[in-house]
């Protein structure tokens, strides 16, 4: 407005974000004249808003409206006439040599970790990690930010290798971690609403690196699932330069960010098309697909009718739903007559309608969707004109519904999330030509027991074992 349109402007931002926007403005060479009414504004009565306007700016203690008038009329200072951009200094490639104990402390105290123990990225460990791909260490993989209000950070294959080492990964995991880095999506985009993330791996690499796609796939029982998901957040913290309260403003954050719900789709037990094939990839391609949302509602049971019922009452700011379903659920959907996931999604959307009045009573709708409706943006504008008892489908397109198949067929249950699919990235680009680089003795956590011989993994007594007898 100031620069391109040439109109003097007074931007008003709630006081809670004063530091954030002033830092952003300085970094951009934009000496804007902010005014800061108290926080929050959402949900406040007219009387409170009037008092905000007639009262003082809590940051400066000056009358807010006098600040607004001054912002538009006070002559520009020399600094405002000739603003400069403050850039972050470039950093050396290596940290100063130090003891392991001191370096570990530096990593933790600098905010470069997720709070859990890390493996220090020594030259030797990083070099070993780089054997997991053919790409050159200095190849630029991408740029990352956690908020649009900050300088983007560029990172190389070597930087991603350092992150992979920190996460506890082995070279065999590196192609998946590079694909995550190539997505350029942060696992922790900054929003006061506290986003969570989910990632699913499809294709042959799931089995090559022994990802868990079956029993307890979303629990901490598999090295690949754990370290790959963790690496995404470590790169978001470091490449995205995430700092809580400075540029990461999630009011309470999201626990999913520790490993971002990382799992492989259970293609072997899935009666439908694998997710990556739905997105246009070949079945023999290895792909990681990313999701973003807020809510995870565990334990749903029942047929498609029940899934439609749950999402009809599942309040959320977004319009997407991603069901994470056990393979038994996929089989049940097939038995209900749905030939594809898309058929099921279409039916679920058409049968998940709620009264318009119920929809608009939701806080998210009154706050977010109502603004879109006022601007005439569809379908919100039409919905706002409907009588209270008119049925509407809040998830209005079958493409808004995703189904991911994972689990060990121990319960025909599903999880409902409001996660939106954001992107799929091919992993194969990052594979070494000679194949996945496995350790001589691959590091594996115990594989979930799948009973195939009736013993259920319980050691069978041998003739040399003393028989268990009742106590005398």
């Amino acid at each position: 407005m100031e620069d391109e349109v040439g109109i003097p402007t007074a931007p008003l931002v709630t006081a809670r974000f004063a530091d954030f926007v002033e830092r952003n403005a300085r970094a951009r060479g934009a000496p804007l004249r902010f005014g800061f009414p108290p926080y929050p504004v959402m949900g406040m009565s007219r009387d409170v808003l009037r008092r905000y306007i007639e009262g003082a700016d809590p940051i400066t203690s000056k009358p807010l409206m006098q600040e607004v008038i001054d912002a538009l009329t006070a002559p520009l200072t020399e600094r405002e006439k000739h603003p400069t951009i403050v850039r972050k200094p470039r950093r050396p490639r290596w940290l100063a040599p130090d003891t392991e104990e001191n370096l570990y402390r530096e990593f933790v105290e600098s905010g470069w970790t997720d709070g859990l123990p890390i493996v220090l990225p020594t030259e030797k460990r990083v070099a070993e990690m780089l054997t997991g791909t053919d790409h050159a260490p200095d190849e630029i993989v991408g740029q990352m930010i956690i908020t649009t209000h900050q300088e983007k950070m560029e990172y190389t294959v070597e930087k991603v290798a350092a992150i992979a080492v920190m996460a506890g990964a082995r070279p065999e995991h590196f192609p998946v971690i590079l694909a995550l880095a190539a997505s350029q999506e942060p696992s922790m985009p900054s929003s006061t609403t506290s986003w969570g993330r989910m990632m699913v791996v499809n294709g042959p690499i799931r089995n090559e690196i022994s990802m868990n796609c079956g029993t307890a796939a979303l629990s901490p029982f598999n090295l690949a699932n754990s370290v790959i998901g963790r690496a995404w957040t470590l790169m978001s913290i470091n490449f995205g330069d995430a700092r809580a309260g400075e540029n990461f403003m999630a009011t309470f954050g999201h626990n999913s960010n520790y490993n971002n719900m990382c799992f492989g789709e259970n293609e072997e037990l899935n009666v439908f098309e694998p997710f990556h094939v739905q997105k246009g990839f070949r079945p023999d391609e290895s792909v990681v697909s990313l999701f973003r949302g807020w809510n995870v509602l565990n334990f749903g049971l029942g047929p498609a009718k029940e899934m439609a019922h749950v999402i009809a009452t599942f309040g959320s700011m977004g319009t997407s739903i991603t069901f994470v379903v056990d393979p038994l659920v996929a089989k049940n959907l097939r038995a209900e007559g749905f030939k594809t996931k898309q058929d099921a999604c279409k039916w679920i959307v058409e049968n998940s309608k709620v009264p318009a009045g119920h929809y608009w009573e939701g806080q998210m709708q009154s706050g977010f969707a109502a603004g879109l409706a006022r601007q005439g943006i569809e379908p919100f504008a039409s919905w706002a004109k409907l009588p209270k008892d008119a049925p509407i489908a809040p998830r209005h397109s079958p493409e808004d519904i995703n189904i991911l198949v994972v689990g060990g067929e121990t319960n025909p249950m599903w999880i409902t999330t409001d996660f939106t699919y954001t992107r799929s990235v091919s992993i194969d680009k990052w594979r070494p030509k000679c194949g996945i680089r496995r350790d001589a003795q691959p590091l594996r956590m115990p594989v979930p027991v799948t009973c195939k011989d009736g013993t259920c993994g319980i050691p069978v007594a041998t003739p040399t074992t003393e028989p268990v007898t009742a106590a005398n």
Partner: protein
Amino acid sequence: MEQNGKLTVLDPHGQPTGIFGRRLEAQSNPRAILDPFEQPSGELKPMSMAPRLAALNGKTVYLVETGFAGSFEFMQELQNWFSRNMPTVKTVLRHKRGTMFTDDPELWAEMKSSGADAAILGVGG
């Protein structure tokens, strides 16, 4: 490399490039928020500030509602404040199109062509 019990480790922070995320287009899908592929990038240049007015009396001030929850009501109250306290100022209350994260070049062009003297954008956060 380990010498005298000391390790050399890589600095995990990326190198800044001076490239910033920029505005989303008005037509951008609301889900494009923070999506780096949806954001044009470019080298940043310092912003020029517009010349200030001598006074607001008799001027036209656009009150642009950003789309954050509650900001419409806030800007309405701001308009009421001008009516009560500075009635010579003409205020025009407008919604910015799209979400709070999107750009609205049509509105900026309209403001310029219709002779807007100043603007108040609110309320962020």
